[in-house]
Every structure is written in structure tokens, then in C-alpha cells.
């Protein structure tokens, strides 16, 4: 057991820049040492691998939001007789798998920050058995203390309308996760829309339409995006130009307590309401009676007053059992809960409107390895990944990962030298023909020659610099399957990067025989992240990166 814990810890340290990995990676808390092998890193999973099972093991498909409960859950074996094995997935990706039955038999339970979206998918509720809420955390705006004071929001009632007005006047900027990838972003989007639509009931198409102009104003101030709440908080802590964050109260309080912020965040509790995550630990209908019993034990243990108090003190989430009252840190504001859509069509419409009309457009550069070693399955996987992003992936998460209306996509294939950049600009509506052109472009890629990673990455940055529009989200994706064989070195690139007046993040896909160390260094240098596609599908890694673009 201790060996396992160590392996996990070593993995985590090493993964500082690699924090965002394949979301499907299996993190074995207590049980899976044997399966992983000594010294294995934590990203051993593939989308199809089932986590290790055992008589006392409860296999939980979870949102990465609950990662901070790992230390607590480790104790569940001694305290409750349940060995918790967690596997992580993004909210919509997880919803996809549960609704399609893909989680049945591989997992016994799920634990996402909310089941609301999942419940809207046809047939999904039949796959869920008992749901037990464990804790709650509202999604709020946290703003640098000085900025909050400047805006006069310090200790004064503020509404989403006030916030939208200030955002529209560019009086502050903020970061938020992608609503298509993460529950905090989705909850915020629902809340802001409900508040701005002025309707008072659950939002539906007409309300979304009515609120769209105001939503555009509000989100014009969003200058940082991410695929996960944890990464967003990290990215925020490392910089100084963004003024605030839309995130769970727990993440905001946690950041304040972490000592990592130059200036603490003032939490703004909008008077017109919030959307609250309630973290339902949910038994799958497919679970066997033994697992059902383990589930009951774990749920009971987690809801005991002592554990509830510990969750509150260590993770800043509010307790769900009435016996334990939230302490002073949570303030005394009565939080009005805004209605959540009760139809899939409304939820999807909202995400679609956000991605394609409301948010600032993205400019995305793909620096793609087409060297000789990519020949065969690898180049096919790359083509498939590009096809999926061009609208061929019709799953819930896939349909929100496609190249978006108003997005500028540049492809820079490379081998012994960078190839000619090819740029595609998606129009404001009717993206079909452009998507088709991207697909054809991808289909025509051929594998040959050497691997000039750093010359090509540099070409990507040059291209980004020459074309970046102000206000766009610009990022670079680097995908390579091997070592650098031609041209400049990592060190050359690093000194080039440091000299740049405007920085862009690089999201690195580790594939085939990638040099993991060097790839990690690129991600760390540029404030990006690595996505490991060595054991999973390349398309899944590309899809996950979309949350950060």
C-alpha cells in the first residue's frame, strides 16, 4: 500500500507540467499497484481498460474536481471497509459514457460534480440507481481584492447584470473553464444566462436567444479558458494579468488559502443567484449487490458528521448534512439557486451558442509531425483526429469539440523542416464547407522524412505572432511521435521563446515514441499542458485539448 501511495506521489510530482493528462487515466488509490507495476506513473489507463477490481473495491468514474478528496478517500478502507478506485473523465465525456452504457460493468458508481446534464440525456437515468449528495459548492466570481474594491463590489450586493455591465466596459477580465468540458464552466453559463435572461424560469431557446447579446458582453471579458477547474486555478495563480476567475467557491477559497496568490480573491456572491454543484455519489444500475453494499458503506461514511466537517475544513466545500453547519469562511449570504434547464435541447443550445457565437473566437495552430515514423497507423490516427474535429464525431462531447464558427485554424505539418502553413477561417455561420476543406486537407497528409520539432514549433510561433488578432484565444498544439532529428534544439527554442514579447501556450500531445521529458519542458515553459495519447486514442487527446482553446 505505501508503495502504491509513493508511486502516485512520484507520478504527481513528475506531472507538475503534465498535470492534465489523459482524463481517462486510472488513478489507483489503494488497489492497483500490481496492475500498474512498480514505479508506474499514474497515467496507465486507456479508455477501454477497466480499473482493477477486488472484493472490497468500489470502482468510481469521477470528475477531476474531486481529486482533492483523494487523501480522505484513502482512509475509507480502514474506516468504512471500502477501497476506492477512481478513474477520471470530463463531465460531458463521462456523461457520454454513462448514457451509452459504456460505464456498465467497468465501474460501480460515478461521482461528478453534478448529474444534471447527464440526466437530460435520453435513457441515462435508467443507468443510474441511488444518488447520494456528499457536499455542495456554488459557482461564483472571484476577483482580485483591489479590483473588487475598485468596482465597489466589496461587501455590497452585486448582481450578474452588474457583473455583465462591468465586463462589457472591460473594467475587469476573468478566466472560466469551457462549458463543454467542465461543470464549473457549464454551471456558470447556465447561471449567467438565467440571470441575464430576466425570465425567472428555466432557460429555453427563446430565453437563450434573448440573452445572447448580454452574454456576448459578459464573455468579452473572458481572457483565460481551460478544460478543467483545477488547471484553470493553477494557470490563474501563475499569472498576473487576468483579474479573476469564475469557479467553484471551493476552488476560490482554496486558492486564497494556498498562499500562491499575490493578491487574495474577493468572492462575489451574485444576489440574483448561482448554480450549485452537489457532488452526487451515484450507484450505477448495473452494479452487483456486493458493490451496492460497498456503495452504501462509503456514502454513509462520507456523510458522517466528522467526515463532513473534514471535507469542509480541508476542501472548502459546504457540508450537505444539516447536522453540520457551514463555518464562517462561507459567509452568510443566502444563495438563491437559479433554475437549471430540464431539456437536453436547451442545454445543448446554450453550449453551442457559447462556443459559436458568444465567446471570443479562437486562433488555433496545429504543428503536426508527418515524419517517416508516422507512416501507417499513426498517420491514420492523426487523420482520424482531424476528421473528428471537423464535425465527424457526433457524440455529446465530440459535437462540442469541433472547430467552431469564427475560429481560425492553421495547420503546419512538418518533417525535416516546417511545411507551408495552411489557414482555414470558419465563418460566423454555416461552417460545413470549411470543415470539409479541413477534412480534405487532413486526408492528404503524408508521412516521410525527419523530425524538426523545434524549428517547426518556432515556425508556429512566428505564424501566430504575425496573424494574432487582439482578443482572440491563441494557442498552439504540438503533436510529435519521436525525438528531434533536424534543426534547432530545445534550448534554442527556449531562448527564442523567452525573447518573445507576446507569449502563447503550447499544448503538447505525447504520441508514439515522443521524448516525454522534452515535451513536458515545452508545456511547462509555455504554460501549456501535455496530453498523453500513447495508450489511448489520438483523437481523444485532441478532443480534450479543445477545452483549452
Amino acid at each position: 500500500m505505501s508503495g502504491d501511495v509513493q508511486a502516485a506521489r512520484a507520478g504527481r510530482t513528475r506531472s507538475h507540467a503534465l498535470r492534465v493528462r489523459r482524463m481517462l487515466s486510472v488513478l489507483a488509490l489503494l488497489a492497483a499497484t500490481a496492475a500498474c507495476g512498480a514505479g508506474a506513473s499514474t497515467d496507465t489507463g486507456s479508455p477501454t481498460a477497466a480499473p482493477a477490481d477486488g472484493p472490497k473495491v468500489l470502482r468510481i468514474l469521477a470528475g477531476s474536481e474531486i481529486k482533492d478528496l483523494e487523501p480522505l478517500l484513502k482512509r475509507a478502507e480502514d474506516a468504512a471497509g471500502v477501497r476506492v478506485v477512481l478513474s477520471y473523465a470530463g463531465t460531458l465525456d463521462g456523461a457520454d459514457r454513462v448514457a451509452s452504457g459504456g460505464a456498465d460493468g467497468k465501474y460501480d458508481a460515478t461521482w461528478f460534480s453534478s448529474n444534471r446534464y447527464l440526466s437530460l440525456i435520453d435513457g441515462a437515468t435508467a443507468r443510474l440507481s441511488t444518488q447520494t449528495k456528499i457536499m455542495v459548492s456554488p459557482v461564483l466570481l472571484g476577483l482580485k481584492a483591489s479590483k473588487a474594491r475598485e468596482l465597489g463590489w466589496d461587501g455590497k450586493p452585486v448582481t450578474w447584470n452588474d457583473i455583465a455591465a462591468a465586463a462589457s466596459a472591460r473594467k475587469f477580465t476573468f478566466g472560466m473553464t469551457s462549458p463543454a468540458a467542465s461543470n464549473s464552466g457549464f454551471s456558470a453559463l447556465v447561471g449567467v444566462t438565467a440571470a441575464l435572461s430576466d425570465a425567472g424560469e428555466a432557460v429555453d431557446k427563446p430565453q437563450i436567444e434573448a440573452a445572447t447579446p448580454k452574454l456576448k458582453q459578459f464573455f468579452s471579458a473572458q481572457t483565460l479558458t481551460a478544460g478543467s477547474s483545477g488547471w484553470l486555478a493553477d494557470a490563474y495563480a501563475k499569472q498576473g494579468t487576468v483579474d479573476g476567475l469564475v469557479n467553484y467557491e471551493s476552488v476560490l477559497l482554496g486558492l486564497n488559502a494556498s498562499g500562491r496568490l499575490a493578491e487574495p480573491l474577493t468572492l462575489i456572491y451574485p444576489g440574483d443567484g448561482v448554480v450549485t454543484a452537489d457532488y452526487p455519489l451515484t450507484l450505477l444500475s448495473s452494479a452487483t449487490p456486493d458493490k451496492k453494499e460497498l456503495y452504501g458503506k462509503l456514502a454513509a461514511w462520507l456523510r458522517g458528521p466528522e467526515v463532513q466537517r473534514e471535507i469542509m475544513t480541508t476542501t472548502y466545500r459546504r457540508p450537505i448534512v444539516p447536522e453540520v453547519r457551514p463555518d464562517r469562511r462561507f459567509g452568510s449570504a443566502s444563495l438563491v439557486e437559479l433554475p437549471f434547464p430540464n431539456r437536453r435541447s436547451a442545454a445543448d443550445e446554450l453550449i453551442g451558442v457559447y462556443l459559436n457565437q458568444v465567446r471570443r473566437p479562437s486562433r488555433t495552430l496545429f504543428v503536426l509531425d508527418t515524419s517517416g515514423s508516422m507512416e501507417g497507423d499513426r498517420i491514420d490516427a492523426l487523420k482520424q483526429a482531424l476528421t473528428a474535429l471537423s464535425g465527424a464525431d457526433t457524440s455529446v462531447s465530440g459535437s462540442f469539440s469541433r472547430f467552431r464558427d469564427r475560429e481560425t485554424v492553421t495547420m503546419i505539418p512538418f518533417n525535416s523542416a516546417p511545411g507551408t502553413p495552411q489557414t482555414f477561417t470558419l465563418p460566423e455561420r454555416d461552417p460545413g464547407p470549411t470543415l470539409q476543406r479541413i477534412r480534405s486537407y487532413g486526408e492528404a497528409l503524408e508521412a516521410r522524412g525527419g523530425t524538426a520539432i523545434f524549428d517547426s514549433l518556432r515556425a508556429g510561433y512566428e505564424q501566430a505572432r504575425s496573424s494574432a488578432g487582439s482578443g482572440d484565444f491563441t494557442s498552439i498544439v504540438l503533436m510529435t511521435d519521436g525525438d528531434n532529428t533536424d534543426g534547432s534544439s530545445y534550448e534554442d527554442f527556449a531562448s527564442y521563446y523567452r525573447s518573445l514579447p507576446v507569449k502563447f501556450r503550447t499544448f503538447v500531445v505525447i504520441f508514439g515514441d515522443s521524448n516525454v521529458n522534452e515535451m513536458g519542458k515545452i508545456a511547462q515553459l509555455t504554460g501549456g499542458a501535455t496530453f498523453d495519447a500513447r495508450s489511448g486514442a489520438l483523437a481523444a487527446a485532441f478532443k480534450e485539448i479543445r477545452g483549452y482553446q
Partner: protein
Amino acid sequence: MKRWIGVGLALLLGGAVVVALVVGNRGGGTKPRELTLVRGVIGSEKKPFFDDQRVRAVFAGHGLRVEVDTAGSRQIASSVDLKKYGFAFPSSAPAAEKIKRDQGAGRTFAPFSSPMAIATFKPIVDVLAKAGVVRDSGQGYQVLDMRKYLDLVAKGTRWDKLPGNTAYPARKRVLLTTTDVRTSNSAAMYLSIAGYVANGDDVVTSTAQGAKVAQAVAPLFLDQGYSETSTEAPFEDYLSLGMGKTPMLMVYEAQYASRLFAGDGSIRPDMRLLYPSPTVLSKHTLVPLSPQGAEVGRLLQEDPELGRLAALYGFRTASAKAFDDLVAKVKAPLPASVIDVVEPPDYDRLEGMITAIDRLYRSGAAPSSTP
């Protein structure tokens, strides 16, 4: 240790407890008594009762070990495979009536009931009283006038538009929170109440009435947005998160009463229980599917100790005494009896209305606030 903290979770202890009891009962070296296993499928709100070790002890005293699975009442009546069960124990009379008919059961037992009620807060009661929606029943408790409430909803009234409302100026619609009417019995009971009023103060008895009424009352459910599938979840929100999240919640009186009787402090001083006028009784009705199942029904109805325990869980039983004693003991603000109770429609009519509302969910039609 507060006795009730673990109530909802007592299931864990179940297995261990039975063993202990059997061993404990064996007395002077005689062999432990062999218990007959009876399986039941029940509405989830009764699970804590069946998992209570004292309840299990009474059954064990009669040679029975009762194990239960939970399912929504509508599910029990329509989709649950009843072959492996000795009894079905849904939370409403209409569902029980359907099961009885389908299974050809000879009789049913209705050992306990609970009126539908509204868990809310004092500031909300005051605001609604000012708006004329809440009034005194003259029987020592306050009621929510359903007719006036439906009028308020029909106008799309928002909390911040209610005259003189400084206590809860939320910019959201005045709507009772309920569970999902497609899965949960408490919401179906609410539908019965609203349907009665919308049908001109009469029980819905025809398909044509049902179709019209469903259309009229659908916004009560659709306009709420997302609603939960089980009654315990929103009640928990009510208790823990308070007025901001759940200003008014449709509950079984038993949920609120059991917390009061437990004296665990979860019912705080500003919390109030109203009764809709009219209301309906959730009549927990056991349909025996085997002779042992019938014995469970008989014991629930006749055994005084089981009646006393059921009252602890907030249920009203055949003999009012158990409930009344508890009310007196903790000085609970609960009426001895609730008047203005109407009957729910029969199963087919109720099912027809739920199906019609389900169609509106699916059609994606924008909720209309004008019934």
C-alpha cells in the same frame, strides 16, 4: 449520540444486526431460530424504517427477515419485475391499485399514510400571506390556497414582484419545488392536488379531463427547470442550503415530522410546514404477492410496536395515538388531523396525465406560463 443521525444510512448495519439478534435471541443454548426471508420492493422513503434494527427485531420475533429494494412508485407499478418479491409497497393508493389488479392480489394493507405538505420558511409564509395565498385553516395550522397559488403561477409572478417582499426578493418565479413528476410519487401527488383544482375542484375521472388538466398544470413542473428524481434529495437541500435554494418544497409530512420527532436540530426555528388546501394523502399501500408478504402487511397494520416505530418515522398510522404522543412529547407544530383532503385520481387517469406532461418535456415546447 443522536439516534436519528444514521437513520437514512442504517441499511449498512442491517446484516450485522440480524445476526446479532438471532444470536441474541437464542437464549439457553437452543439453536437460533431460522428466519424466513421476505423480499419487498418499496418506495425509497420507507427504507430507513425497514432498515431500523428495532423494526427488524419485531419481524424477527415473528420469524421473518424482511429485505427491501427501493424503486419509484410508478416504476413499481409499471416496470419492476415483481416475481422475486413477496410484497410491493408503493407510496400511493393508485399505484397499489394497479399492482393489485395486475397481480390478481386478493387484498391490500394500508398501514400508514402521510398528507402532502409544503416545507418552507417564515419569511416566505409572511410574504405569501400578504399576497393572500397563505391563510389560517382555523384548525391550528396554515394552508397554501392552491387556487390562488395556481393563479399566481399562471401570471408568471416572480418573487421580487410580490408586494412588500423585502425578505426574499429573488428574481425567479414563484414555484413550489417538486421532484420529477415522471419518476417520483411525491410529485405525482402534487399533480393530483393541482389537477383537482384545475378540474374545477373535482377529481379527474375521464381521459378528456385528464388531457385538459395536464396541459393546464404542466408549467408547474416544466417551468421549474431541472428537478430531482427522489424526494429525499431536495428535502436535504431544504434542510442544509435553506431558503435561497428551496423557498418552498412539496414534501411528505412524514419527512418533516420525523426530523421534528428526532429533535436533531435540523428543523431550525425559521422553518415552517404548510399544508396545501386541498391536499391528498400519500397512502402507503402494501400489496402482498406471497403468504409471507401478506404476513408482513398484517404485522405492519396490527402490531402496536411497528405502529409506534412507524410514527417515529413521521407516518400517521391506523391508531392516531402513536403520532399524537410524539407530537405532544416534542411539542411539534403539527396538527392532530388535516382536513380538506381529496382523493387522487385512479391509476390510469394519473398515468395519463403524467404521460401527457412527459410528452411536453420531450417536445421541447417552451413552457407556457398561461395555463
